[in-house]
């Protein structure tokens, strides 16, 4: 029996290309957070990011034959995620998504004061993130959410490690300035 957890990405892709759904499930488990980070960087909306990632994986499954280098699955997938996210950004957000999100967030904490504070901080972080350009925002998200190295972020975003380092430095500084004023001012 194949242990998918131990297989490399290109091996999983090879299995999945032969119609092995379990191999593709392993690819989803391994890359879902990365894809969510990319989608969130573009959309700045968790629910919509989840929708885009879901759609992107289904699209990737159907188009696996188009992937020329199996080892480059992560960056190929992130390309699909990014394109779908950009498309989705153009569409209008449904009010029901906001309600669901609010319901989930309310359920997370039992202390209303903590919850309120957390929400306010979240809103300010989102506002500060919105002032950044998309690449810088995506770089920050991939670093803080997925804990990727600059080289890995560069590979996903199609840029160089040095450019990622520069964007991370400027992004952090901008966020710090913004949040210092917002939270302490």
């Amino acid at each position, binding site marked *: 029996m194949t242990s998918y957890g131990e297989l490399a990405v290109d091996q999983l892709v090879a299995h999945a290309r032969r119609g092995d759904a379990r191999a593709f499930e392993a690819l989803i488990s391994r890359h879902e957070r990365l894809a969510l980070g990319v989608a969130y960087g573009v959309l700045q909306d*968790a629910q919509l990011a989840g929708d885009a990632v*879901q759609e992107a994986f*289904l699209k990737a499954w159907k188009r696996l034959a188009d992937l020329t280098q199996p080892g480059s699955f992560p960056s190929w997938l992130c390309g699909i995620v990014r394109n779908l996210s950009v498309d989705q950004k153009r569409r209008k957000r449904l009010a029901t998504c906001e309600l669901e999100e609010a319901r989930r967030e309310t359920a997370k904490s039992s202390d209303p004061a903590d919850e309120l504070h957390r929400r306010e901080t979240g809103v300010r972080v989102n506002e500060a993130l919105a002032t950044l350009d998309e690449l810088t925002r995506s770089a920050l998200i991939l670093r*803080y959410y997925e804990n990727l190295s600059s080289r890995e972020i560069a590979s996903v975003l199609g840029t160089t490690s040095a450019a990622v380092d520069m964007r991370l430095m400027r992004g952090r500084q901008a966020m*710090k300035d913004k949040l210092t004023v917002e939270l302490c001012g």
Partner: protein
Amino acid sequence: MKKKNKNKIEPESPQAMAQLDAILSEHFRGALAGQSGRALAAFRSEIQHTRRRRIGWSAFMAVAAGMMIAWGVMAALTRPNNKPGQPAHPMEVAKAPETPKTAPMMVQSASWSRMMDDGMTMVNNQPARQLRRTILQEVEYYDPATKATVRMMIPREQIILIGVKAD
């Protein structure tokens, strides 16, 4: 009592960046926590749906193939015999001149018919009422030479057109 702000960033604190890192990590984890696992669930659902569709299609193809085979068998059984040198219709076997010794004898014959009204139709730009008559004739022969009994079912259909006077 004012609640302590645990996410507060001190403007000139040496730990400012570390605090920022903590705030950002927590923010992204919290925001995207509810989204993990959705893609996997959606993929599994899609796979199941595809399998169900395939099974449905296979069943349809199997039924269609079965119907084709049945139709083929029926056609072969009811097809007129057109081999060279042989009569085109089984009825003609009985009518064909044979020596009295080997000629099969008709033992019995019965027929059932049903008339159906197909409604109005147009024939040469004239209105007509179309009736469809289906006849099933059963004939039994006995061949004294071979002592075999042959029973035949002959289905026929007639279309009857009755002219209707247009006023």
